[in-house]
């Protein structure tokens, strides 16, 4: 067999480096300038002032002095705080867990490498954006009108908001996942649902678990806020202690929340270690 050996191509006369560099430098400098400008504007907009912070230390010290020592009356503060934090934890657990099937479905539809059609992709993305845009507290208000007061609307609020956030995080982890196993199964003739179930999901499971646990931690804190709209829990107690200027009680509640957040963090770290 004859071998066709293509003639070597002549190299360009002058290395284009200089041009290239200047071509890249200009947009880079513009981007940097824009970034700086944005931060200057933000600095002004937020009235950021270190001197004010330093000069106002007395006020902060005064605040802390009121909070320390924490009020440790067992029957009136600590026990109710623990009980309320359990309600908060339960709200977060229910909201997070129940959001999983919806987040899973939307995440698959909202990942460009897993979605069946562009239209479906757009619809799923829009849905997720909407769910994220509506603050959980607004969902809580909506559900209060449907199911009344108490922790239940809080669960629903966390559920809906969490579908939006976790669905997006999960969709992005699908998009970032290694396409190799999917290609491999596609060549075997697998359908999309089979690809998702047998290549995509197993590949993203560790990230999903990690993201899900992170969302759980965040939801614990969200359910603190939801306590403010009648969903109960320790957020309710915290709000009350602020309004009544009982900072010593506030500090106790914060310590309880701290313990709860640390416990959740340890648990999720242990789970993540086992799964990956």
């Amino acid at each position, binding site marked *: 067999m004859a071998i066709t050996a293509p003639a070597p191509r002549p190299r360009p006369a002058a290395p284009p480096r200089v041009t290239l560099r200047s071509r890249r430098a200009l947009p880079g400098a513009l981007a940097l300038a824009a970034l700086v400008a944005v931060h200057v504007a933000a600095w002004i907009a937020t009235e950021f002032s270190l001197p004010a912070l330093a000069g*106002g230390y007395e006020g902060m010290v005064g605040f802390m002095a009121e909070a320390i020592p924490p009020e440790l009356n067992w029957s009136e503060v600590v026990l109710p705080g623990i009980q309320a934090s359990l309600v908060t934890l339960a709200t977060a657990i229910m909201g997070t867990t129940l959001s999983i099937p919806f987040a899973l479905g939307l995440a698959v539809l909202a990942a460009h490498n897993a979605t069946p059609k562009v239209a479906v992709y757009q619809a799923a993305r829009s849905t997720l954006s909407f769910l994220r845009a509506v603050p959980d507290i607004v969902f809580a208000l909506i559900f209060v009108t449907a199911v009344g007061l108490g922790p239940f609307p809080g669960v629903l609020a966390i559920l809906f908001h969490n579908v939006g956030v976790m669905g997006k995080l999960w969709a992005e982890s699908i998009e970032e996942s290694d396409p190799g196993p999917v290609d491999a199964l596609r060549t*075997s003739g697998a359908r999309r649902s089979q690809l998702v179930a047998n290549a995509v999901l197993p590949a993203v499971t560790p990230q999903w678990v990690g993201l899900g646990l992170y969302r759980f931690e965040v939801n614990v804190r969200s359910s603190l806020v939801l306590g403010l709209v009648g969903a109960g829990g320790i957020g309710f107690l915290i709000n009350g202690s602020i309004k009544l200027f009982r900072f010593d009680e506030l500090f106790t509640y914060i310590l309880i929340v701290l313990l709860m957040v640390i416990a959740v963090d340890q648990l999720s770290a242990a789970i993540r270690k086992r799964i990956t």
Partner: protein
Amino acid sequence: MHDALDQLVGDRLDGQDPLDGGAPLTGVLERATHREGRRLVEVGVAQDDERVVAAELQDTPAIAQTPRDPLTHLHAAGEGDDLHRLVAQGRVEERLRVRAEHHQGVGGPAGGVDDVGQAVRCQRGALAYTTLAGALERELDCPVELTIVEDYSAEVLAMENDELDIAQFGPLGFVFASQRADAQPVASFADAGGELTTYKAGIWVPGDSPLQSIQQLRDRSLALAEPGSTSGDALPRLALAKAGLDPEQDVKLEYAGGHPEALLALTNGKVDAAEINTQQLKTSMEEGEFDPSQFPPDLGVRRRPQRPDHRPRQPRPRVQAACPAGADQPGSPGGRGGRRLPGRRGARPAGSGHPRDLRAAVRPRADPRAHRGGRLAMGVTVRTTSAAPAAGGGKQAPAGDAGPQLSIRGLTKAFGQRTVLRGVDLEVRRGECVTVLGANGSGKSTALRCVVGLAEPDEGYIRIGGRMVSGLRGAQLAAARREAAMVFQQIHLVRRRTALDNVCCGALGRLRGARSLTPLAFPGELRDEAMGCLDRVGLADRASDRVADLSGGQQQRVAVARALCQRASIILADEPVAALDPTAAEQVMELLRRLAHEEHLAVAVVLHQPALARRHSDRIVGLLGGRVTFNRAPAEVDDATVGALYTYTHEEPRVA
């Protein structure tokens, strides 16, 4: 929360002057309202020109322009959610408590702080607090900075630490401001007539409710707004207490989160009764969200008598029990009419003088709140090097199988400007192991990817098992493609699953339904078949190990087993040994050759190692710049021939 209020009620404020630190919450409020009332009478000052003020406020969106470098901070807040609603709806008619502090070096207003006394009325549609700030600016003759917060707590703290000069509070917030920051009342909201406005709290039940009095609320559910709200918490509690009920024990109190939520809870039938203050009542009626006639009896917690012209137009709910809240509460919505405020200025000492004096006298303050043609290349003669008999397990060659199992002709493929394949011909017969050699970018992998459908050729045709792929659609295309299985350099197994589960996945193309979605549900026959495939690659003993726990060579053999489980007659291997050590590479190549020779499969392997190619293949095809440069038996391929493939590797061929 109930416990927190309990505690408040129970000890801290028990029986004491709230400002001195003690009295039940209800008592605190009672006192607070009295106290406010008294002070209002004393210091609530309406100017003689409040009509002018009112008129100006109606037309003053422009006043909202507040300059920077403010000399005076004005921070306003309502009770909890009240504020946002008020601002959004612009229906503020609430008593304002302001206090001003003039900084040195600036010409202060002639009258000083006491001249601030101002009756302010904001019309519907106006941004209440913006107009308020504008009015203050005018009155004080100094720049005013407005910040809006959601809750009084932050205001009180800021005021306490000299970070806020003027703030607006509801009754309870003022109690705390007065207690902690020594805040003094200086002005309040009034209506167009200069009349102090007011509102009252009420306990409402549905029209068909059997409840006729507050006492009957025992063991019933009552929706309140939120803890610390004057009309949404404290006053209803006070009413309950006066009716002989223990708010914590006898009535199921539920905090809805705000006045609107409490009203919604009632209208949606979620509670037996709810707190609705006159302000919320008015707002809701205007919005058409609430029809008081459907909720007749107002079990009423009264604040201050309303003027008749202010009453709801619908039948007025009957008041079952009036709560004492004696005095004037800062009213909000309601008041329009009325009496003029005593036109007093200077209820405060110190008035005009030096800023320092003011600072000493007045200190209330602030609140923070506030993103590529394809021509045929050199013809490649198709030869069958070895027509090995169908051996071992695999599939029998179809009867009358004379042609190549895989046939590629004139394959052309460009990615954008870069042409990778320039008319490649390749044929692989059953029982034959063909290796393709070529430098990076010579198009080896692309050719294979075109066969399995991971890339679409621009020109040329692909024939699998005698069928033209390009003429097939749907199920037939899928069936044809399934005849070719790919093994990748990067292996592409699901690392977290077992070897057996991965092998089973090769069969997905012929599995349907829910049982194909998880290895847990894969049919038993499939698992048996997959086990057989693993055995053929010599890894049956590692079937239940996770892929991640296997060596690279073992993983690649599992990938080959997956291709076997696909029941493919063609195995395409894209640099299957590039990442493996020499021993493992030898094993994998040995396996592939055996599958061709013993199982009568058509095997094409893209390689970078000429030595391996010589040892394990029946034929070697050389690719250079997207064209086939040679296609011979290994013995006919000398080092120079191979070397020519790699001497010119500097750049990829370009299309002019």
